[in-house]
C-alpha cells in the first residue's frame, strides 16, 4: 500500500496530517479531482435533450456511470441504479417511494440497534405514520448482531429489513448474507446500508442477493453530493418518484401527470452531473485496486490499534475482539471527554471524530454518552498508530498533572 498515499493530493498540502476520520468522509483521489476540474473547465453541460455536443457527451458519460456502478455491484442491468444525493436520500427513497404503500397497520419493519440515523429514523417515522412496529434487533455484548434474536424478530408481518453492512461506530462487519436469507425466508425484502463497506468490500448482488443497497460517493474517494440506490429488478416497477419536478415527467396537463419509470423517475431536477462523473472516476480507481490487500491493510491497522489502545489505562473500547471488525475503532477514555481528546489529538495533527457519530441508539445501548472514533483507510500507515497512542498518553499525563 506504499505508494497509495501519493494518489491523494490532500497529503501534499498537509504532509503531517494523520487522517483517521475516514468513516465520516474519505479523502479524494487525484483521478477524481482531475476529472472534476477538467469537467468544470472544459466539458461543463447539463444532460438530457441537449442536442449539442457538450450536452450529448455529458449525457452519454452520465449514463456510462450508471452502467459502471451496476457492474461494480455485479449487475448487468444499468437501470437497477438510481443516482441520489447520498446514502441518506437513497434510504428515504425506499422508505417513501417503495415500502410506504405496502404497509398496513400491524406490519413491522426490522432494523438493528447499530444503525446510523440514516437507516433508523426514516423507518421509525414511517412506522409511526402507518401504525406499524419498528423492531430493533439487539447486539451481543461483543457488538455483533444477535442472529438468533434477529431471526425471532422477522416474521410474516415484516415488510422490510434494513441493516447496515458495517457499523460506522463499532466497525462490526455483519453477516449480511445470512441475515438476508433469514429475511427472505419470511418474504421480507432487504435494504443494505453499504455506506461504510462499498469502498473496499465485495458487494456483488449475485452473491449477496439483497433487494436494495445504498451508498455515498464521498466515502469511496469520490465527491460530495452523490449517492447510489440499487433496486432489485423485481421491485423496479414499484418504485415511485420521491422529489417531483422536471426530468421525471412522462406527461403533465392541468389535471393529470404520469411519470417515467425507475430509475429515471428519481432524477427530478437538474442532476449533479459533475458529481456523478466524479463517482465514475472513483469507481475506476476502486477497480484498479487490489481490494483484498486494501481490506487486510485496514483490518490490520484496526486490529493493532485495538491492541495498543487496550494497553492504555482507563480506555474502554466499543465492541469486542471476537467480532468481525473493519477499519473502525471507537473508544472512550476514563475522565476525559471525547471532545477534549480529539482537540488534543488535533494538536498533534491527528484528525479523529468525537461524539455520537449519528448513532444515538447504539450509544444508549452501549451506555456510552459519547465516544472517540478512529477510522482507517488505504492511505493510513502503521506509524500513525504509534503517534496516536503517544498523543493519548501525553494527554493523560497533562490531564492528571
Amino acid at each position: 500500500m506504499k505508494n497509495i498515499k501519493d494518489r491523494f493530493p490532500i497529503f501534499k498540502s498537509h504532509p503531517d496530517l494523520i487522517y483517521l476520520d475516514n468513516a465520516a468522509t474519505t479523502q479524494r483521489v487525484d483521478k477524481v479531482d482531475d476529472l472534476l476540474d477538467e469537467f468544470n473547465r472544459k466539458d461543463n453541460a447539463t444532460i438530457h435533450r441537449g442536442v449539442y455536443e457538450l450536452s450529448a457527451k455529458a449525457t452519454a458519460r452520465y449514463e456510462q456511470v450508471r452502467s459502471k456502478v451496476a457492474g461494480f455491484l455485479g449487475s448487468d442491468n444499468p437501470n437497477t441504479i438510481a443516482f441520489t444525493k447520498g446514502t441518506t436520500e437513497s434510504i428515504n427513497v425506499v422508505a417513501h417511494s417503495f415500502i410506504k404503500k405496502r404497509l398496513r397497520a400491524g406490519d413491522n419493519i426490522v432494523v438493528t440497534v447499530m444503525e446510523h440515523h440514516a437507516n433508523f429514523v426514516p423507518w421509525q417515522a414511517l412506522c409511526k405514520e402507518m401504525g406499524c412496529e419498528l423492531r430493533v434487533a439487539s447486539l451481543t455484548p461483543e457488538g455483533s448482531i444477535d442472529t438468533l434474536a434477529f431471526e425471532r424478530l422477522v416474521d410474516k408481518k415484516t415488510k422490510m429489513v434494513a441493516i447496515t453492512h458495517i457499523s460506522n461506530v463499532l466497525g462490526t462487519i455483519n453477516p449480511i448474507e445470512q441475515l438476508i436469507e433469514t429475511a427472505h425466508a419470511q418474504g421480507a425484502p432487504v435494504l443494505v446500508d453499504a455506506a461504510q463497506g462499498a469502498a473496499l468490500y465485495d458487494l456483488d448482488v449475485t452473491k449477496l442477493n439483497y433487494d436494495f443497497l445504498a451508498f455515498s460517493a464521498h466515502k469511496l474517494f469520490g465527491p460530495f453530493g452523490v449517492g447510489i440506490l440499487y433496486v432489485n429488478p423485481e421491485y423496479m416497477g414499484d418504485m415511485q418518484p420521491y422529489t417531483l419536478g422536471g426530468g421525471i415527467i412522462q406527461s403533465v396537463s392541468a389535471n393529470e401527470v404520469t411519470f417515467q419509470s425507475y430509475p429515471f423517475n428519481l432524477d427530478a431536477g437538474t442532476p449533479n452531473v459533475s458529481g456523478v462523473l466524479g463517482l465514475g472516476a472513483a469507481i475506476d480507481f476502486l477497480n484498479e485496486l487490489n481490494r483484498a490487500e486494501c481490506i487486510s491493510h485496514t483490518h490490520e491497522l484496526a486490529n493493532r490499534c485495538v491492541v495498543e489502545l487496550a494497553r492504555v489505562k482507563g480506555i474502554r473500547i466499543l465492541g469486542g475482539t471476537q467480532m468481525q471488525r473493519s477499519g473502525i475503532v471507537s473508544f472512550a477514555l476514563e475522565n476525559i471527554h471525547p471532545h477534549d481528546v480529539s482537540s488534543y489529538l488535533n494538536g498533534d495533527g491527528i484528525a479523529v471524530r468525537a461524539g455520537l457519530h449519528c448513532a444515538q441508539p447504539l450509544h444508549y445501548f452501549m451506555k456510552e454518552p459519547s465516544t472517540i472514533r478512529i477510522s482507517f483507510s488505504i492511505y493510513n500507515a502503521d506509524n500513525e498508530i504509534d503517534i496516536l497512542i503517544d498523543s493519548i498518553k501525553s494527554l493523560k499525563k497533562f490531564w492528571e498533572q
Partner: protein
Amino acid sequence: MKKDEFKKLYNQEVLKRNKKPYNFDADEEADVVIEAYNPLCGDKFNLYLNKEDSDIKSAHFHGFGCALSKASTSLLMELIEGRNKTEKVEKCHTYLEAEDSGSSKRLQNEVQKVFAEMKNFEGRVDCVTLSWKALYDKMKNDED
C-alpha cells in the same frame, strides 16, 4: 456532429422520408393503435396497424416528430407491412440491437444501415428508435 456529416446523413434518406413519409395518415379504424411518445422532446406518433390473422395487412402512422423520428417511423411502416408478427419482432430486435451494440453487421438492408448509423447523431438516438421501441415493447408484451 459536423455540419457536412449532418447534411450527408439527412440528405441520403432522412429528408426524403421526412417530406414524403410512407402511409402518413391517421387510420382511425385500425385494429391496433400504438403510441410512440418521447416526453422530453414532445415527439408523438400513433402507429395504426391492421391485421389479417397474424399478418400486418397495413401499417400507417401519424403525429409530430423531428425528421429523424419521422423518417425512421416511415421506414418501419414500410418494413412491417405484409410481415407477420414474429418477423416484425425480429426486425425491431435486430435493429435495436444494432443501435445498442454499435454494430450494423447483422443489418442486411442498405436503408437500415443508414439508420443504424444515425446513432452517431449526438444525442439523437432516442429520436431514431422511438417508434421501433414502442412497437417492439408492444409486441413483446402481447407475447407474454
